[in-house]
């Protein structure tokens, strides 16, 4: 092999293409905006034939991992930390003692990994999460991911007679599919979204969690008299509002309303249930039940104000317990509830909640040791690893169960109870992972955020959001999905 070969990705020599890449990277210093894109210019070597040879499939090694091949695992170092993954890596190293595992954790998933995808040398397993998450739609569309079906059909780590697929919580497998049967993503964490509050604060008002909107307004009025705001939310990221608003829309109008919204159907947002829920939330603003200054707070600031007892309710996900652990007082008695509905004419019962997978793990198509990546995931989906995760970071995993015998924190316990109460009535709006920009910026910030700050009426907000959804439906630069 000549050292100028484009296929040479090793460290032994600087190839011609590498030189060009580096030159592009250096250009970045002189002209920041123009040339920084070229730094990750697509000068990679295309298909590389140096994939690890498959090992022998045995009962203990059902995926046929090559026990001498190296495995590289890159984790998003976010709200859940990296300890849980390190523990799972140790098990992998024990099982395949001849294999060298390279584990790293970073918050900069995209800036670290985008160039490697372009060069065709991605790691074997990635937790593609956080603010720098790579666009899954693009990765799937450009055939950059490995189908995880072999993993799902492999025997589970604990019980050889059960497939991994059968040990997962409902909805996890479907969330990893885009169109068709193939499963591209495995969500490891399981997030409960809803309205979070302090049971202690609610008790001090002599109130129960409200089930109808009239009760909600009454509770907020009572809180207001005591000098406490009813609600706060991440004003700079108003796309936290849907965590309680979308399941409310589903509860009031039925699942099909949310499905229509996800499918970007014409006039989906014009359904009366949407307007009714918008009106209900707008009422909170009009009656002065929102903490003053909320539209200018980010998620941490709003969570802190809420933990300090300045506001009663906050729409959030189950990560809030870990993320705000240092500001939540010991006797806070954190609890989550399914969103309050309108009244008894709602289509779904009280308890209808949004729960879905979080922390998306992917195995790149060009991974050298895809089997190793999948095996690592299989280890993480064992009961022991799942328990380890739940115990350490106060969140559930995709593994169904695994909460017996560990001391559950108040928020987690309340989350499990809310899931039990919901039973079948779990909704999972996909607009959040299918259309990131539409959901976050357009619906979230420019629609809901403006409405809750009092700068748009609900009718205007509906009209504006419908306009955005129509735009997205027409935009052929983004990939469109439909509920199957």
């Amino acid at each position, binding site marked *: 092999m000549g050292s100028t070969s484009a296929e040479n990705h090793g460290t032994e020599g600087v190839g011609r293409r590498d030189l060009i890449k580096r030159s592009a990277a*250096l*250009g970045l210093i002189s002209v920041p905006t123009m040339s920084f894109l070229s730094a990750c210019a697509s000068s990679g070597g295309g298909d590389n034939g140096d994939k690890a040879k498959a090992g022998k499939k045995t009962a203990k090694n059902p995926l046929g991992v090559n026990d001498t091949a190296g495995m590289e695992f890159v984790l998003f170092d976010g709200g859940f930390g990296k300890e849980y993954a390190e523990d799972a890596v140790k098990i992998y190293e024990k099982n395949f003692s001849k294999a060298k595992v390279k584990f790293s954790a970073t918050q900069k998933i995209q800036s670290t990994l985008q160039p490697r995808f372009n060069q065709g040398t991605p790691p074997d397993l990635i937790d593609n999460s956080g603010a720098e998450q790579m666009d899954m739609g693009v990765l799937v569309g*450009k055939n950059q991911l490995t189908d995880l079906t072999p993993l799902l059909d492999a025997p589970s780590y604990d019980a050889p007679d059960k497939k991994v697929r059968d040990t997962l919580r409902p909805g996890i497998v479907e969330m990893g599919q885009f169109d068709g049967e193939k499963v591209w993503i495995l969500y490891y964490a399981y997030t409960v979204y809803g309205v979070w509050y302090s049971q202690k604060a609610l008790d001090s008002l002599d109130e129960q969690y409200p089930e109808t909107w009239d009760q909600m307004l009454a509770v907020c009025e009572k809180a207001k008299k005591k000098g406490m705001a009813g609600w706060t939310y991440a004003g700079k990221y108003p796309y936290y509002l849907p965590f309680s608003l979308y399941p409310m829309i589903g509860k009031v109008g039925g699942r099909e309303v949310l499905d229509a919204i996800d499918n970007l159907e014409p006039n989906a947002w014009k359904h009366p249930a949407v307007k009714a829920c918008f009106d209900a939330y707008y009422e909170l603003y009009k009656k002065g039940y929102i903490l003053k200054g909320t539209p200018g707070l980010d998620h941490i600031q709003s969570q802190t104000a809420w933990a300090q007892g300045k506001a009663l309710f906050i729409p959030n996900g189950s990560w809030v317990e870990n993320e705000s652990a240092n500001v939540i007082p010991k006797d806070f008695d954190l609890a989550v509830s399914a969103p309050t509905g309108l009244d008894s004419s709602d289509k779904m019962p009280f308890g209808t909640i949004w729960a879905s997978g979080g922390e998306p793990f992917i195995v790149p198509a060009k991974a050298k040791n895809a089997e190793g990546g999948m095996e690592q995931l299989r280890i993480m989906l064992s009961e022991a690893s799942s328990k380890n995760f739940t115990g350490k970071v106060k969140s559930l995993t995709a593994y169904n169960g695994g909460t017996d015998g560990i001391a559950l924190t108040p928020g987690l316990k309340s989350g499990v109870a809310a899931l039990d109460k919901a039973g079948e009535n779990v909704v999972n709006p996909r607009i959040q992972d299918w259309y990131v920009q539409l959901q976050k910026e357009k619906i979230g910030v420019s629609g809901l955020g403006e409405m809750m700050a009092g700068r748009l009426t609900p009718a205007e907000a509906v009209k504006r959001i419908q306009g955005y959804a129509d735009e997205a439906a027409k935009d052929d630069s983004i990939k469109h999905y439909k509920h199957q």
Partner: protein
Amino acid sequence: MQHGKYRFIVGFLALPLGLYALFVVWPFIQSIYYSFTDWTGLSPEFKMVGFDNYSRILDDEIFWKSLQHSLLFALLLPVVTISLALFFAFMINVGGRKRRNGPVVSGVRGSSFYKIVYFFPQVLSIAIVALLFAFAYNPDSGAINSILRGVGLDGVQPLWLGDPDLALWAVMAVLVWSTVGFFVVLFSAGMASIPAEMYEAALLDGAGRATTFFRITLPLLWDTVQSGWVYMGILALGAESFAVVQIMTTGPGGPDYSTTVMVLYVYQKAFRDGQAAYATTIGVALLVVTLAFAAVVMRLGRRERLEY
């Protein structure tokens, strides 16, 4: 010995020019090339799509908003920053009253202290400055609203970064705060090289501060002001505006796209939406805007060089 001269010059220039072509010109060409493709930035595959990206820009509402904001940055920030810096530099170096036994030309009392104070923000990274101000602008517990409350203005509690009408101005104010010190030092250096005799003569003729400034300081400082102007404009269009907008008005660029700027939009398209080719197209547009800005400033600012 004429023909030997060129070989001599070429010999010296070949290496630097080569490096320049490789490290500066080539990335530009590459970027422009990618703007004609459908490259996602997440896979090495792409195909040529002609002018599709450019025609898409025309209907992209957010692009036009970001262009508008970037232009506002480029036009307004240099005016404000440089006027302020000129004023401060003048007061520090020349504007003082004549003191007994002191030099004829001097700054106001405590000028060396002010110089340090003005320059101080410059030693902080822009990321830190942006973070600090993001806290200060917090409408609930931030410093600014607390001060307003403290002086009895309880009714005036703006949302600052949460208000689409204020957010852009709040961000600009931070950029002025953090860059003005650099120009104070730059202009101070320029003023130091203006001969003291000129000021003495002006003073003997009875010129006041304003006359001295407009008749002596500004004309003799013109070259420095002009380069400062271009430099500030490029900062406002590029890196600095990106940092403050990205850090302070997190999310898409402020409520209702009120602070989106072109660089931020380039970044979002490339590294969030997986549309690297479209991002390079916006980058090309930004290049055009920046070059046009520099050309206009150089053209309008051209005047005769004064020798002294």
